[in-house]
């Protein structure tokens, strides 16, 4: 297999297989969750409330560090969270734009994307440092917390030259790593984000019905 064939394989075929596994695993997990009975409370507040609005407020809270006392007080942690997740979002987006819309990946776009991922990498180091040093974090950290952070750090570190240089060697490593992550993420605690959608919906629904939000 020559370099070009290998690159084409990891950019398209391997990603397709990994994405299929990714979707299948999530489909099974979500089905398992939805098969369980959902004990919802009855009743509704007397005062005028809008559950829809409360759900929207619940989802929007992630974007507003001032909305919660915890993120207001620990704004540095929120900033690191934001930088880290923007880095992830950009690194994921690049795995689609590089093979499917290469024209979009101009040199300046590459620079911006690489910078965002680099910031994510820095944020990842801060997260690891906090997890090792803050007592309330250290006491609840498990090996999979460190493993998850570490493999994403490796992924970020590979993504930066891959996105910036567009070199076939880096791209192969980046896309192989992405494929491995796609299979690992649904079974790991990194899958928290998928539950976030359910949780914030239920939070908004509950507090909306009760007239709190």
């Amino acid at each position: 297999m020559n370099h070009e064939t290998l690159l084409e394989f990891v950019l398209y075929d391997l990603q397709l297989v990994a994405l299929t596994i990714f979707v299948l695993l999530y489909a099974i997990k979500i089905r398992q969750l939805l098969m369980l009975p959902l004990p919802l409370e009855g009743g509704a507040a007397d005062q005028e409330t809008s559950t829809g609005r409360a759900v929207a407020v619940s989802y929007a809270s992630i974007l507003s560090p001032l909305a919660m006392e915890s993120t207001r007080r620990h704004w540095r942690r929120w900033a690191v969270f934001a930088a880290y997740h923007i880095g992830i979002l950009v690194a994921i987006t690049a795995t689609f734009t590089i093979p499917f819309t290469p024209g979009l990946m101009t040199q300046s776009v590459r620079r911006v994307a690489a910078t965002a991922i680099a910031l994510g990498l820095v944020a990842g180091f801060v997260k690891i440092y906090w997890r090792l040093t803050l007592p309330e974090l250290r006491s609840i950290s498990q090996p999979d917390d460190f493993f998850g952070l570490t493999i994403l750090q490796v992924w970020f570190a590979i993504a930066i030259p891959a996105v910036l240089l567009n070199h076939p060697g880096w791209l192969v490593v980046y896309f192989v790593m992405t494929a491995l992550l796609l299979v690992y993420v649904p079974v790991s605690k990194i899958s928290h984000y998928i539950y976030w959608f359910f949780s914030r919906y239920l939070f908004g629904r509950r507090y909306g019905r009760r007239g709190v939000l």
Partner: protein
Amino acid sequence: MSEIVKRAQEELDKRYNRLVALNASSLCTRCGLCADSCHFYLANGDPEVAPAAKTERVRSVYRRQHDWLSRLFPNFTGARELTEDELDAWVDIAFRYCTMCERCTVNCPMGVDTPVVMGAARGTLTAIGKAPEILVQLADAEIARAESIDIFKDMLKEQIGFLEEELREETGDPEASIPMEKEGSEILYVALSGAHTILPAAKIFHRAGVDWTLSFFEASNYAVFLGDMKRAKAIAQRIIDEATRLQVSEVVITECGHAVFSYRWSTPVWFGELPFRIRSLIEVIHDYVRDGRIQLDQTANPDPITFHDSCNLSRKSGLAEQPRAVLESAAADFREMTPNREKAFCCGAGSGLVAVEEWRDTRLAAGRPKAEQIRNTGARVVVTSCDNCRHQLGDLGEHYGLEIEVKNLAEVTARALC
């Protein structure tokens, strides 16, 4: 696996519904942001009592059973087998160091519902006989009272007779009464044991000209604290049956946080649609003031007053504005604590903790953030609409030298009646 652990595992499995599964999943990222939203953590700085750490104890057992990776590599994910020692540790984390106040939930970016996980742990511990004995006894006493109500009726009527005399004296109306078993009344008022939950409400009903009747039963429902929904439903059934028999239009629950919460949000699930509505006394007082059915004189309560939000009422039931509106009319100098409303700190003794005497030191320490809030207002009177909080705030006042009087909203309102 011992018999008790086997039973506990079965009870945990029974409680594994969608809410428990979601909150026991990897939803919690173990970010630790919840730590200082918890009064127990603030009290002693012990990371083991931070919300994420407490729920992690229970979550790790669920994970061992239900999470794919944890089944294969439990040490990697921190998943645990259930053991009797673990269950003993749960008694502390679920009953002693968590008041199910939901303050961590509203401060969690992921929305982890800690009380859902703790509720599963409490229910499991109750089912295997490891719940605090006093809570079990109190719940059983509530059921026993319903089973032999005829024995209590005459005694209760006699006691109410004394309060009735007091009511007549204070209102100056020789016809003023505290009716019981009055069919077709507008309101069935469910109080607690203690004149402070009966007499002020009676004065307010009298002044508002309401057709009401007093329930034979107390509003409290200790089975809710136990996570024992079967027993909680049996306790609620007493009030539902009484209200149905008396054909009232409305059941009004006294100033009791967990009672309002459970009657308001759980009874529709347990009993379906009812022929009467259920409200809190604070909503009723608010409506009387708003509609001009009672007039209040602020000068009757001249001392600086602050209001403590019961978690069950403000954060969990959206009843934060009504008591404030009443206090603005009933008190000359109303001051807010910060933070307040749904962001307020728990008093430190909710969800049954106040009843467990051997954990008194724990709850007094956990009440420190609340005591500091009160001190910062400079208030001499603290009003709260929950009897559990009232008890704890009184103790906090003594313990932290706050020089405060603790009253409920009805007392302050009754005093201000024109």
